């Protein structure tokens, strides 16, 4: 899995964007914490909660992929197809980071999400358990980057590999989120925008690698070991 470093970088740099969206949550977690050490603990526990959910979602996606593969006769085809789909998804995300196509904003107008109060209660409540639960719940919030990573996890066709991908991605998002929760915004808006662009390149690369992996696997006859044939997957 040569994507893993890229996945980590995508998470680490992509969280420059996350800070815009989820940074508010980190700040809320921090707001109720007396003392920097206690706050650090809460921030870590909160991020662990997110990690837990990301890994869980990754496992669900892998499992769904496996079901799909078991359903059709040629497992390699499914796995390769998933890799290509995941790659395309990541490429699409990269495109929206570079603003090649506009990001679709849902959630403008209309009634606010009914679940908002549910998550908010945990974010505001003191104690480590509540911070952890808040992390678990915010992990379910929609995020394009997350979906790309989930597709990537599903394409690994292995529970452990999928879990690893998501865990690496989640750890990538941790430094900036924890830093935000601790010290408010360390990075200014313009700097965050630039860091986010770099993250776009990581996502782009991860997408290219994933598509290439899928295509290579497809070009080889079933029966051959696709991983052995793929120059990138060794």
């Amino acid at each position, binding site marked *: 899995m040569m994507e893993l470093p890229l996945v980590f970088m995508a998470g680490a740099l992509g969280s420059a964007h996350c800070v815009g969206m989820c940074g508010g949550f980190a700040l809320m977690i921090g707001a109720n914490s007396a003392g920097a050490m206690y706050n650090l603990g809460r921030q870590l526990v909160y991020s662990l909660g997110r990690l*837990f959910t990301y890994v869980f979602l990754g496992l669900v996606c892998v499992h769904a992929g496996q079901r799909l593969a078991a359903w059709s006769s040629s497992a390699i085809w499914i796995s390769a197809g998933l890799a290509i789909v995941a790659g395309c998804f990541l490429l699409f995300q990269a495109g929206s980071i570079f603003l090649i196509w506009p990001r679709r904003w849902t959630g403008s107008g209309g009634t606010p999400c009914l679940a908002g109060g549910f998550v908010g209660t945990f974010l505001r*409540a003191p104690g480590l358990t509540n911070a952890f639960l808040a992390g678990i719940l915010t992990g379910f919030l929609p995020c394009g980057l997350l979906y790309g990573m989930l597709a990537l996890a599903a394409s690994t*066709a292995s529970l452990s590999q999928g879990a690893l991908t998501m865990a690496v991605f989640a750890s990538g998002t941790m430094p900036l989120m924890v830093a935000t929760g601790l010290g408010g915004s360390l990075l200014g808006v313009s700097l965050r925008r630039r860091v986010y662009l770099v993250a776009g390149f990581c996502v782009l690369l991860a997408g290219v690698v994933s598509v290439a992996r899928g295509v290579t696997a497809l070009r080889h006859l079933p029966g051959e070991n696709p991983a052995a044939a793929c120059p990138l997957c060794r």
Partner: protein
Amino acid sequence: MTLGTDRHRPCDFCGLPTGFSAAATGPVYCCYGCRFAAGVTGAQGESGQSRWMLTRLGLAIFFTMNVMVFSMALWSTDAFGQGALADPRSRVLWDLFRYLSLLFSLPVVFLLGGPLVESAVADLKQGRPGSDLLLVIGVLASFGYSVSALLGGSTHIYFEVACGVLVAVTLGRWLEAIGKQRTVDSLKSLAKLLPDRVRVSTSDGEDWRDLNNVQPNDILRVLAGERIPLDGVVVERPAFVDEQLITGESQPALKRPGEAVHGGSLNLEGELVLRVTAAASEGTLRRLISAVQSAAETKGQSQRLADIVSTWFLPVVGLLALLAFYLNYQVGAGPQSGILAALAVVVIACPCALGLATPMALWTAMGRAAISGVMFHDPEALEKLSKTETILLDKTGTVTTGSAKLVRTLLESSEPEDRVRSIAASAARSSKHILAERLAAEFASQRSFPTTVIEHLPGRGIVCRVEGVPDDVLMGSRRFLESRGVSMDGEVSATSKAAEAEDLGWMYLAWGGQARAAFAFEETIRPQAHELIRLAGERRIAVRVITGDRPARASKLSELLGIDVEGGLLPDEKLARIHEARNRTRGSVVMVGDGINDAPALAAADVGIAMGTGADVSREAADICLLSNDLARIIWAIQLSQRAVRTIRYNLAWAFAYNVVGIGLALTGLLNPIFAAFAMAASGILVIGNSLRLNNFPEPDSFANTSASLGDSSDATGGTHKMNDRSLVAYWAAS
């Protein structure tokens, strides 16, 4: 209106009607979701008890995720597939995962099963066992089976099913409850507009007092830009007041000393000193809100149908679940597949979506209408209004402005002029007819005599006794007086007869068999009448005017408006016209009037609309009260009702199709109960979300136009009142 026998206690959380009678004691909830949500928000704020309910759900979600991870690992082919169990290490891991599943699912069952059991028991105690009971049985069965299977070494364990169903059901119902509460919120937030504390003038200066402690006759001071907290009468200094919230009228009204102001209106300009006339609990705003609430508590036809369905629900679903168990057991997949299929049936057959489909949409639409000054008394009126094919309008006070102008006065020369005027003023003050009221206002400075009404004939006139006059005094139309044997040959009636060809409305005063005075009024057509006719024409709704006024004036009006106007109708003839119209069309016939003189006509139509009722929303004969005089808002209300009915149809179609397909799938055993639980939650939330969209129904057009002009004229006064009431609600909620 169907009140009394059909009243039910509203849910203590969301405010929607429950199946419990008004006599039920203790807190009452319409569903498990509301019970749970009430537990969450009940102990106000963030205190321990309330957060514990949520923490329960959060922890249950965490444990369930773990159980599902173990289950997925157990199912996974790359971990334990294809004979991997032959490997002893793998075997140990496999057993570990199985026991961990049990370990992690135990807290879920205790955390979430507890409240569900409580809810099922509460239903049982009220003698109406519901779907919660079936759910409890189903979840316990699948959990119990899995425990025995685990101990017996079988591979078939379904801990994730019990956990997933509990989490999805709780989460789904909780979200539903929040959504339901939101439909009621928009109205309740109107009450929150009132300030908590008010300035009360006392003998030694001024005092801030709690709103609820203000008594009638207290003197309040309200500064410019503040909301008037209570109903009252202006004591000092005139002021411009925005009454949009109460009357829907967007033009500011000038209130002079002695005039009444409604609590909830906004003081635009000048410092207002007022004497309170009603305590907070009896004020206009409170009555408006409770009018809509009591309307929603009245069960419509479709709601009664839903009630009948739900009494059959439990036995039918119970039988279906047994059938599912039997079928899947027989097919040979073992008791576990029977249990799972039965659980799936119980979960998917939850009637939530079906039960919510109609009331949610009606309630939201009625709340939306109320915000724009259209008050429904009855949910059925909304359903009928959507089928409007004919609109019949009363003329006086409806098509024409209520404020007729007195343009000519003819007095019998044989009587002292002042005495005739005083007798006219006395009689006019006893009548509710629009012309009489106008006359009373014109003669406000006139001395009047004690008067008792003997007879009041709506639309024709009154007979009364006025102190100092030996005979009965009659006031009314020429026709009415003639029918009572009054001679119309005198000086007054001869002159007026010559003038009756003009487009004026005449009212006569007579006693002693002789007409003594005649008053001529000029009416003006409401500008919105033209818009109503234009908009109705676009929608192929027939509009006609039926009036008791003279045919000559009717044809004049017909010319001006370009529609049919039938004049010279007595009240019972008006009724006959309405019945004819109802027989002619398949759709609904809407009668629009002022709600006082034409009460029988309003009651006879499919939908009776009373115009310009202001805060007087209790006009019983009308199904709908238009707080403002904006006739075009009738079309707006029709559009809203059509949207609401369409929403109801979509909701019902969806809920029905979902139940049929879902139950079918569940019977075959193809539907995993977890998916069933999520589908159930999604279905209910879809229905609520679909209904809540009615809240976004646009404001009436004419509304927007007039508020724009209001904004222009009032920029100098700070501009807060430029926002319409909806944005005000948002503004106040945010601050």
